Structures are given as C-alpha cells and as structure tokens.
C-alpha cells in the first residue's frame, strides 16, 4: 500500500509499550469510581469469588493499556516520517472486537503491554483518513496473557 506508512506504523511488529505494577490501592480507587463489585474493591470478599483475590476491573486494565500506548507513541516507538505530505496524525477510534480478559489482573501483578499494528485501509466516507487495525495485548509477570483485543483507530494520512 505505502512503504512509508508500513515503516511508520511498524506493520506486523509486536511493540512493547511498557510495564505497570497494579497496586491494591489503585485497583480499589479505580473500581470505587467505576466498577465497585466486591472482587475489585474488597480483598476479603474477593477471596470468596471465582477470582479468588482482589483484581483490577477489566476497564482499568484497558485504560492502563491506553496510558502506556499513548506514552509510547510520544516517546519510545516514535519513528520519523519519511513519506510525502505531513506526518500521519492519530484520531479517534471507532471501536474494537474480540476483547478477552483472559486472566484476572491481581493486586501486585506486573503487567507488560503490547501493540501490533496489523493493516490499514482508506475510509471511504472520510477522504484523507485511513483506519488502522491493531492488536492490543497485556501479559503478566508469569508470561500469561491477561488481555487481548482487536482495536482500530482513525489516522489522518493520505495514501498514494
């Protein structure tokens, strides 16, 4: 499609975004505001659920993936733009599919986030924009997958 865009997005490469340790305090703080189910706010009660211990709201894990994704985009994974026209600019996301919270994220877990850009195509209804599909993942300190999702994002970029 475009060599410059393939290089810029690092198509097909599993990019490490960073590692975060989920503390009990932040798990409870997030959950008290958005998802105060027992297993996210009360370690005692969590022990008696299917989870067996205090664990992060799935939305907390997703939001943290986004935090590391944004930070990495600005710093570590930034690749200079060598194509024609202006540098591609990330816009909003239309949604995602096949999100799986494969395993719980427990208090004290160290979670490493990944992103793999898969492909891109023009958006017919919006000239000058493309939609980039990607896979987001999170893996715990034992190497177990805890989150995966097939995401998409609109990017202002022109295809030759």
């Amino acid at each position, binding site marked *: 499609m475009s060599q410059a865009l393939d290089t810029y997005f690092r198509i097909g490469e599993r990019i490490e975004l960073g590692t975060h340790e989920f503390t009990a305090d932040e798990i409870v703080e997030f959950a008290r*505001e958005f*998802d105060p189910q027992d297993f996210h706010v009360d370690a005692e009660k969590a022990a008696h*659920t299917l*989870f067996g211990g205090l664990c992060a*709201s799935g939305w907390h894990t997703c*939001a943290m993936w*986004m935090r590391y994704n944004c930070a990495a985009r600005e710093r570590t994974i930034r690749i200079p733009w060598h194509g024609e026209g202006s540098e591609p600019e990330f816009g*909003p*996301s*239309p949604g995602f599919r096949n999100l799986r919270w494969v395993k719980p994220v427990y208090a004290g877990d160290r979670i490493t986030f990944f992103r793999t850009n898969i492909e891109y195509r023009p958006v017919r209804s919006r000239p000058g924009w493309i939609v980039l599909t990607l896979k987001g993942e999170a893996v715990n300190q034992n190497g177990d997958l805890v989150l995966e999702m097939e995401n998409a994002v609109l990017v202002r970029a022109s295809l030759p």
Partner: protein
Amino acid sequence: MTQTIRAYEDFTEGMTLPFGTVKVTAEDIVRFASQFDPQPMHLDEEAGRASLLGGLAASGWHTCSIFMRLAYEAFLKHSTSQGGPGISELSWKRPVLAGDELSGSSTVLSKRVLRSRPNVGLVTFRHVLTNQRGETVLELENPILFALREPEAGAAP
C-alpha cells in the same frame, strides 16, 4: 433488612434493564484523560473542537467505565455477578462531549449454564449508552457470569 440478590435465574431473554442518568463534566473528562488517555482532544476544548470529535470529548475508555458504573447501579450491585470474560464487539458511535447526560440500558440476548461449572451461568447482553438527545454513543455485546441461586435445580430457564 433483607436485600434481594439478583441471580442467574432472574435474567430472561429479551429482558431490558434501564440505567440511571449521569452527567459528564469537563472536569471528569480531563481528569480521566490526564491519567489514562492524554490526547489533546480529551484534555482541551480548543483541541477537541479542531478534532473529528467536535469538542472536549471523553476518552472512549472513560465512556466504557461510565457505562460500567451505570450497569453496576442498574443490576450488578446486588447480584451474584462473577465478572465478564470479554466483549465480542464494541462501537464508540458518537463522541461524548462535556456536559452530556448519559443513560441507556442492557438487554438480555441469551443465557446458558456453564457445562464446566454447573453453579455458574453466562448471560449475554447488548448494552447501549445514549446521550440527552437519545443518540446512541456506545454499543457493546458482552457476556457476564452469574452464580445460580439454586444450582441443584439445574439449567432450567
């Protein structure tokens, strides 16, 4: 005082559970985005207006989290919920802008008892979040696990 606990048996196909209403302020949007999604359109009114979103807009993950709170208050709070394994599909249909008032509902699409764990059932929902104009801003399909009240009664609907 006894509190009725909603269990797997209490969900029926086609049942709709309405949400309350919550107003999303500019302060809420910026606070969430500063922590998790610090892109200009989620932090700054001007940048939001210049973006496709047309104003200071909530991070999509913020909208998801707000949905979660509304669903919690509507039917998860006093229930046997054991969490959800994932989301088959989610669409951020429209931006959520500062000042928007969100509500919505969850509708039961299907339900079944797990073969591997006969004391737990999976209830699949279609959740919809709408704004004050009745426009859909978020739509998702997601199964949630609920313990059975009477596992010995089996998988009777």
